[in-house]
């Protein structure tokens, strides 16, 4: 990811000053500091995908209704499509690329594999980001509680039962 940094840290632009044609933003994505000049209209989702080439985060509805764009901002899950990049100066952002790697999967990624928590896979990055955030949120113990906590992530293939099973297995691991 370090190769994605747009402006070298040696010559940082003033983080708060509006630039001609754009707005300067500095934030951390998956552990790497990123400095950008963005069009104020850019959403966090579009910046991640189009500027930083982090295409793991998906665009579904683009209106906060499907959850495919879910990322973590300062440790909390949000819909990247309903947030302007310019609002994230100083923030710490984690996308699915920062969750794990093929050789070192996050336990939730491994659980989705184990429990078949997806079919087409399009909603999966968002499901994973919601599922990992859920581990640190108030959420009851029952499958129905997990389903409610995951209600902001739509899966048109209908893998819901397996997604809940995957999440519950990770929560059980956490307790043992």
């Amino acid at each position, binding site marked *: 990811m370090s190769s994605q940094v747009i402006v070298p840290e040696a010559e940082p632009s003033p983080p708060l000053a*509006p630039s001609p044609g754009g707005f300067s933003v500095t934030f951390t994505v998956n552990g790497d500091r990123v400095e950008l000049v963005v069009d104020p209209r850019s959403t966090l989702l579009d910046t991640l995908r189009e500027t930083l080439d982090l295409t793991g985060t998906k665009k579904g509805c683009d209106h906060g209704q499907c959850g495919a764009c879910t990322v973590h901002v300062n440790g*909390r899950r949000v819909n990247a499509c*309903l947030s302007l990049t310019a609002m994230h100066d100083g923030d710490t952002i984690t996308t699915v690329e920062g969750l794990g790697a093929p050789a070192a999967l996050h336990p939730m990624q491994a659980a989705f594999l184990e429990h078949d928590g997806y079919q087409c896979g399009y909603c999966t990055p968002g499901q994973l980001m919601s599922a990992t955030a859920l581990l640190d*949120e108030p959420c009851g113990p029952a499958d129905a509680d997990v389903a409610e906590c995951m209600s902001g992530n739509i899966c048109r293939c209908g893998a819901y039962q397996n997604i809940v099973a995957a999440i519950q297995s990770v929560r059980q691991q956490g307790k043992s």
Partner: protein
Amino acid sequence: MNAFTFSRAATLEEALAESSDGATFVAGGTTLIDLMKLDVEVPAKVVDINHLPLTGITLTAAGGLRIGALARNSDVAHDATVVRDYPVLSEALLSGASPQLRNMASTGGNLLQRTRCLYFRDPAYACNKRAPGSGCSAIDGFNRNLAILGTSEHCIATNPSDQNVALTALEATVQMRGSNGERTVPISDFFLLPGATPERETVLEPGELITSVTLPPPPAGARSTYLKLRDRASYEFALASAAVVAVVAGGSFERVRIALGGVGTKPWRNRDAETALEGKPATSENFALAAQIILRDATPASQNAFKIELAKRCIVHALTLVTTDGTQP
């Protein structure tokens, strides 16, 4: 999305100065950015207020609770004092939207949440709220989800918020800051009926900023519930909802507040119904009487007459829940 200038305010004073020539504040963005993408909201200037110190949830000297305008819906819903003393607010917040949206959405932004009327959200259609004087496509259109109380010939759009229903039953007040200083209004006076000016939804003036919402001390012995009826079990707006806060002693209502969501052009409260219940036994007959009073002036459109009965049953069931042992205190 239309072009706009963007700036970030670090202090309340900065935010107010930035808005002196007309600007739109952005907090969570879950309503505003959604509507900007649809060209329903077309601000020329957007001021980011997320760095203002308005996130606190603090006890007031009077024994109430002051909730900062930038306190996120998820933080309010899980706040220990809210859960203990104002559970109806926690329940209402958790019944709305999704965890991601609740992490973003702010208390002040939720107060200003715009209607989900399909015609308001689509600039191809006439809408007096979006384009004053253009007409109302909803009155003869798809109006199943729209309002039956507080409507006018110009607009039947529903206020979609759950939070605001609970705040209405809790008799919250709203604090606003503008160039003329701070003012406080009871939430019952904050929202405006559409009348002939549906584009005006609240008393908030241009350039004015909501700074907090204050809850009065919880009435001793109060029980409450938020009951939300909708087309699916989760992640859906209300067709009808009821927030009830009641003190029952010796089987009779000492005090009761009832607010409805999903059926009104604003969070709906009818003091006649509350007066009719207070001092009366908590019986199903009296619950039905209160429901009858609240819905007696309902004016359904072509597809939403079912909401009259739905709202009545919602009220009766919510009153039953708060007056039955075993529910949340």
